[in-house]
C-alpha cells in the first residue's frame, strides 16, 4: 500500500528534487531557460546537460546557437513529454546510408537546430583509441558539427550527433581522410562490435577484431548502399560470457568456444577450496554447473566431465586461476538474434556449433560463410523481415537445407516432441548421416562454411 500511494503523488516531488547546481546563465536573455534540464546537473554522475551547456556557451564556436536551440527543444520535450524530431533523407556523396537525419518539428521556435543529423562512424573493433585520434575526431566535429559525440551507440558506432546536411559531407570527408568510414543505417549491413577479447582477456578463443574486419570489410557495399530486406548485424564475442550481447543483439553472432578439454590446475583448485571453504565451493561452483559436469573429490581436487560440459564459462569465471579454456579454439555461430518487433524477441539459434578459427584458411572460411548467409538473407527474407524471422517462418530444416548445412544435435535443446511430421524418407536421411560420420570427423560444424 505504502509504495503505491507514494507512486501516486511522487509526480509533484519529482519537480522538487535535484535543482540546478551549475550556476549557468539560464536566465540570460539570449539563452533558453532550461529549468527542468537544470535539475539533471546535480548529482555525482557526469551530466550530459552540463556538457550541452558547455557547447551552448562556447560563444566563439559555430555550434553555440545550434546547441542553444537544441537545449531549448529538449527542454520543450521535458515540458510537453513528447519528442519533436522527424526523419528524412540525407546522405553523403557516393553512399546511401550511414546518416540518421533529424529535422525539427518545432523549428519555428528553435530554428538553429532545425537540422540535427547524426553521422554513424565505425569505430576500431574493441573501441581502442589513442588520445591523438580522439582529439582529431573532436576537432573535425568542432568544425563541422555540434560538438556532441556519443561513445558509443548501442550498435557500436561513434555517433557524431547534430549537424546540417552540408556539415555531414564536410565532417565525413575529413573523417574519411584519417581512416574512418560511415557505418550502417536503414535496411543495410550494420556497424559491428567485438569484445576486448584477444587484446586483454584470457578467456578469448579467437581473434575477434580480425574476424570482425574480415567480414565487415568484405561487405562494405552492403553497409554503404542499403539494399537488404532489412537490417543485418554481426557481433563478435571471444567466449560464451558474450560481453557484447551478440546472442540477442546480432543477426549473426560469433561466440568463441573450444572443443578439447578445459585446463585444470589441481593445485590452484585446492588453493581455492582452502580459501573459500568446501561448503562455499560446493554451493557456488559444483551445484551451479548447469550440467552437473563437476564433482569435488574428497581430497579437494576437481573432476571435470568435459563431454558433459557445455562451455558455459561459469567454473572458469569463478576459478580463473585454476581453470581455463582448452587449446582447440574457435567459435560457435548463432543466427537470428533480434529485438521484439512483430514476432517477439529472438535469441540467435545455434547453426554452426564449432568453426575452428586459427589459420588464414579458417578466417577465409568464416568470410565465405558470412557472405553466404547475407546472400541467403537478401534472396529469401520478406521486406522488413530479420533473418531470425525468416528462420522462424520457414523452419530450421528448410533454413539448413538452403545453406547446405547438415543437422546437428547441438542445434536443438532436444529433438521434436510432436509426431506431426512426414517421415517416409527417414531411412535415407539416416543413411546420409551414417555416411557423413564415416567420412568426416568433426560433425556438422565443419560442413557449415564449406
Amino acid at each position, binding site marked *: 500500500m505504502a509504495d503505491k500511494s*507514494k507512486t501516486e503523488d*511522487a509526480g509533484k516531488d519529482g519537480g522538487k528534487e535535484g535543482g540546478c547546481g551549475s550556476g549557468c546563465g539560464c536566465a540570460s536573455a539570449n539563452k533558453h531557460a532550461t529549468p527542468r534540464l537544470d535539475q*539533471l546537473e546535480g*548529482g*555525482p*554522475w*557526469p*551530466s*550530459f546537460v552540463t*556538457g550541452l551547456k*558547455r*557547447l551552448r556557451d562556447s560563444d566563439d564556436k559555430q555550434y553555440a546557437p545550434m546547441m542553444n536551440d537544441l537545449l531549448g527543444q*529538449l527542454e520543450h520535450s521535458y515540458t510537453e*513529454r*513528447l*519528442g519533436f*524530431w522527424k526523419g528524412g533523407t540525407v546522405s553523403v556523396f557516393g553512399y546511401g546510408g550511414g546518416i540518421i537525419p533529424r529535422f525539427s518539428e518545432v523549428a519555428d521556435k528553435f530554428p538553429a537546430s532545425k537540422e540535427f543529423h547524426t553521422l554513424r562512424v*565505425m569505430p576500431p*573493433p*574493441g*573501441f*581502442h583509441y*589513442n*588520445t591523438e*585520434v580522439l582529439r582529431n575526431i*573532436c576537432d573535425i566535429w568542432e568544425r563541422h558539427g555540434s560538438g*556532441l*559525440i*556519443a*561513445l558509443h551507440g548501442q550498435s557500436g558506432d561513434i555517433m557524431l*550527433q547534430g549537424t546540417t546536411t552540408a556539415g555531414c*559531407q564536410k565532417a565525413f570527408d575529413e573523417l574519411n*581522410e*584519417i*581512416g574512418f*568510414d560511415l557505418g550502417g543505417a536503414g535496411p543495410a549491413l550494420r556497424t559491428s562490435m567485438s569484445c*576486448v577479447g584477444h*587484446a*586483454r582477456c*584470457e578467456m*578469448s578463443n579467437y581473434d575477434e*577484431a*580480425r574476424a570482425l574486419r574480415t567480414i565487415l570489410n568484405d561487405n562494405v557495399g552492403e553497409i554503404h548502399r542499403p539494399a537488404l530486406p532489412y537490417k543485418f548485424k554481426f557481433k563478435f564475442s571471444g567466449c560464451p560470457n558474450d*560481453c*557484447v550481447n551478440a*546472442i540477442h*543483439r546480432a543477426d549473426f553472432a560469433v*561466440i568463441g568456444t573450444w572443443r578439447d578439454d578445459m585446463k585444470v590446475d589441481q593445485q590452484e583448485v585446492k588453493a581455492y577450496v582452502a580459501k573459500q571453504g568446501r561448503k562455499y565451493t560446493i554451493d557456488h561452483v559444483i551445484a551451479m554447473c*548447469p550440467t552437473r559436469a563437476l564433482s569435488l573429490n574428497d581430497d579437494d581436487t576437481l573432476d571435470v566431465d568435459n563431454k558433459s560440459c*557445455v562451455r*558455459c*564459462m*561459469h567454473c572458469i569465471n569463478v576459478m*580463473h586461476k585454476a581453470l581455463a579454456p582448452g587449446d582447440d579454439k574457435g567459435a560457435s555461430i548463432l543466427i537470428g538474434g533480434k*529485438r*521484439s518487433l512483430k514476432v517477439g*524477441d529472438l535469441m540467435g539459434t545455434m547453426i554452426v556449433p564449432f568453426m575452428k578459427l586459427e589459420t588464414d584458411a579458417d578466417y577465409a572460411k568464416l*568470410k565465405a560463410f558470412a557472405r553466404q548467409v547475407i546472400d541467403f538473407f537478401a534472396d529469401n527474407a520478406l*521486406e*522488413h523481415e530479420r533473418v531470425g524471422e525468416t528462420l522462424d517462418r520457414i523452419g530450421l530444416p528448410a533454413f539448413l537445407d538452403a545453406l547446405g548445412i547438415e543437422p546437428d544435435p547441438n542445434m536443438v535443446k532436444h529433438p521434436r516432441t510432436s509426431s506431426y511430421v512426414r517421415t517416409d524418407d527417414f531411412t535415407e536421411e539416416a543413411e546420409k548421416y551414417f555416411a557423413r560420420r564415416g567420412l568426416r570427423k568433426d560433425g556438422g560444424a565443419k560442413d557449415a562454411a564449406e
Partner: protein
Amino acid sequence: MTETTASLTPAKPAAPPKPRKPIESGVPDPLQYMHPIMRKNYGNWAWHERPRPGVLRHVAKSGDEIFTVRAGTQRQMDVYTIRKLCDIADKHGEGHVRFTTRSNIEFMVAAFDKVPALIKALTEEGFPVGGTGNSVSMISHTQGWLHCDIPGTDASGVVKSLMDMLHKEFIQEDMPTRVRITTSCCQINCGGQGDISINVQYTKPPKIDHDRVGNVCERPSVVARCPVAAIRPAMVNGKPSLEVDEKKCVCCGACYPPCPPMQINSAESTKLAIWVGGKHSNARSKPTFHKLVVANLPNNPPRWPEVEDIVRKILYAYKEDAKHWERMGEWIDRIGWPRFFEKTGLAFTKHHLDTWVGARHTMNMSAHVRF
C-alpha cells in the same frame, strides 16, 4: 588480406574536393591505437584480478602486466569532456584508452604505481571510477527526446537520474555479481535485455491523424507491420486513411515509425515499465529475456522518481538475498517468483500472465510450487 592500407596512416586533413569520392575503407585496424603491451601480448593473456574496484590487473603468459582503470561517462559527451579525458590519459596514463560495451572509458597503464594518480584525477574531474566486477555498471541507454524520431521519453535523463542514485554501487563491488541495467525510450527497445530494464510501455492504441496518413504513409506496408493484424485501410471523411481495431491492438507502436500520423505517444498515455532477469551471457543458465514486473509508471521528467523507487526496491532485495554469482534472473529462479514479489513488495497481476504467441511455454506445467 582484409587490411586496408588507407586506414593505417592518418593523413593531414585537406580541403575536401567537391564532390569527393569516399574511400570505402570500412572498419579501421585497432592495433594502430592499442596500448603496446596489449598489442605485444595480443591473444596471450593468462589471468586477471581486481586490485580494487574500478581497477583490473591482467597478466599475460609472457609475464607482462597491464592495469586498467575504468571510469563512468555520460556517453553523450561534448568535445570538452572528451578532451579532458584525453588530457588525463596523457598526463596520468599512457595515451591509450578504450571504451567498453557500456560506455565506460578504460585507461591502460603498464604499472600499478600510475593507478592512484589516475584515480585521483578522474575523481576530481567528476568521473566515477568503478563499474568492474560485482558492481552496478553504467546503464546502457538510447537516444530519446534528444535525437530519436519516435521516443516516448528521454533515455539520457532517466540514466542520469538512476546513475546518481546508483553511484555508490558503481564505485564499489558490493553486489552478488555484476549487474547490468538497461533503458529504452520506446517499446522498440534499442537498449536490449538487462538484469533490470526500464522501458517505455505504450498504454493506448495510436491516435490517428487521418488528414496526414494519405500523404505520409505507405498504407500496405503499415498494415503489414502490425503483429496482430489490427490495422485495415479505410476512407475517413473522404480521405484514404487507416483504421485500428482497438479490441485487437496490443499498443506495441510498431505502426508508428513507418507512419508517424499513427500517434502512439501522448504525454499521459506513454508510461514506463520495469522488467527483470534479462541475461545475455551463457554462464550457468542460458541467455534469457527480461520479464515484466511493473507497468504503468508515470513518465515523469526530469528525474522519474517513481522509477527510481522501484529500481531501488528490486536492486536491494536482490543485493540482500542473492548468492554470489547469481544474476538477477538466476536469483529469482532459485527463490521463485512468489518470493520475488513478496520481497520487493510489488504486485502480481493478470498482466504478468503471458498472452503472446507460445504463451503456453511460459506456464508452470509442473507440480513444482513454492510457499
